[in-house]
């Protein structure tokens, strides 16, 4: 199992690392039992993600995918952030080992969870087509760590 240079770069120098006071949306997904938790903070101005921060507990690929996902949504309209797929994150990192693909899924989920929190705080109804799928941190239903 070897990581790409891009993964190692984002692991070594994570972008948008940190916490945020007065965030407009916060999403946390994952489970310490499975070994990874991602927390993403959004600042939204006029429907645009003006700032984003993340905190992650997890392996190198969990840190790198969080970092890459935040970079990919920063400066974008909120709706566009919802279109971020785990596949796009993997591609942007020049690939992940098969056992680590779930980290990219988690990154996608974390972004969605942060947007969902932003929508909820602003009285915007959640579209079940977008927010209804995924693991939704339902750890009881997850067989990822057996």
């Amino acid at each position, binding site marked *: 199992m070897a990581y790409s240079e891009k993964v190692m770069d984002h*692991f070594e120098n994570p972008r948008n690392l940190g916490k945020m006071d007065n965030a407009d949306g916060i999403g946390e997904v994952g489970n*310490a039992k499975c*070994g990874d938790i991602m927390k993403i903070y959004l600042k939204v101005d006029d429907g645009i993600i003006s700032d984003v921060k993340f905190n992650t507990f997890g392996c190198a690929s969990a840190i790198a995918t969080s970092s890459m996902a935040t970079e990919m949504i920063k400066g974008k309209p909120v709706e566009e952030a919802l279109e971020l797929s785990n596949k796009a994150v993997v591609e942007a990192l020049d690939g992940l080992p098969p056992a680590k693909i779930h980290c990219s899924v988690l990154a996608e989920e974390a972004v969605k969870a942060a947007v969902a929190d932003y929508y909820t705080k602003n009285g915007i109804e959640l579209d079940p087509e977008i927010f209804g799928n995924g693991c939704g941190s339902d750890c009881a239903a997850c067989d990822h760590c057996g």
Partner: protein
Amino acid sequence: MKTIYADNAATTAMCPEAINAMTDCMNNIYGNPSSLHHIGQEAARVLTAAREDIASCLNASPAEIYFTSGGTEADNWAIRNAARLGKLKNKNHIITTAFEHHAVLHTLKKLEKEGFEVTYLDVHSDGYVTPEQVAAAIKDETCLVTIMFANNEIGTIQPIAEIGAVCKEKGVLFHTDAVQAVGHVKVDVKEQNIDMLSLSAHKFHGPKGTGVLYCRKGISLLGLMQGGAQERNKRPGTENTPAIAGMAAAMKKACAEIDKNAEFVSGLRDKIIDEVLSVVPRARLNGGRENRLPGNVSFCFEGIEGESLLLYLDLKGICGSSGSACTSGSLDPSHVLLALGLPHEIAHGSLRLSLCEYNTPEEADYIIAEIPKVVSRLRDMSPVWERIMKEEQK
């Protein structure tokens, strides 16, 4: 950037004595030990000398030494053979521990599918089994007790002589996977009542891909493979003469210097353990401090994950491991740490450093300086640590 190699439980750098023995063999002794001409017989003499040296390090006789491709083959062979002998007597019960190496555990899992019953003894929170547990678990159907000499991840040394005595008294075969012990702590098959023992050369500065099964005289041993008459008809295939010569040279040196090395290496170990535990909060040592391999340091740091810890340390030049190298690729924390009763979230934050006599006090100081920095860096970005700190403030 300097490199500090602290992953000697995974494998070791070869010692000059082993390299010299191997290159001499490769340069000059190319014969097949089974050939009757003088070129072949030169190679046969290398094998004989290696067998004698290895036997004497273990207090065994040369006829009890079988060369294998390493520890895994020796483990498979010993266990399969004991199971075969058990079956002949309608005995289908095997006793082991919950934290054996996969070479043992997976062989036993396979035997379970073939109808054997396996008892996995609890290793308690400190990583030791007791002879009393073994005695209590033995029943009429027990054909084998297989318990590792020392654990590869947490370094705890088991009471092998006492367990061997229990087995001897009850007439049950006793095998020990001594891959982590040989060359580092005293191993004496007679004094420690060992019937079968596995060892691997690359754990004591010998070459990879070679090892030994010791099988006490009087135990019927059948080969796993069919082929030529090598190793007294037990293990076919032309012997890897250079590797065997290298293994013998490394073992001779390791056993001759065992006390000196153990004293030096355990000094480095204790310094790292004491200083890291005193500086880093919510850190724990895995495995008891008494009866511990001289080079083993195994920590769990709450709130962080082991792989990222390992890779950040690697960026600082420090090579360690998180759980066993064989465990990587799996997403679950190591079965050894879970066997100690650690919860998953704490077991994920494990770090093993395994030292040897090539490490220096300066390297230990560097490790002691860098670990707290890397742990802090990861904790600063960890939502789990954030939660732990919030709960602490309450």
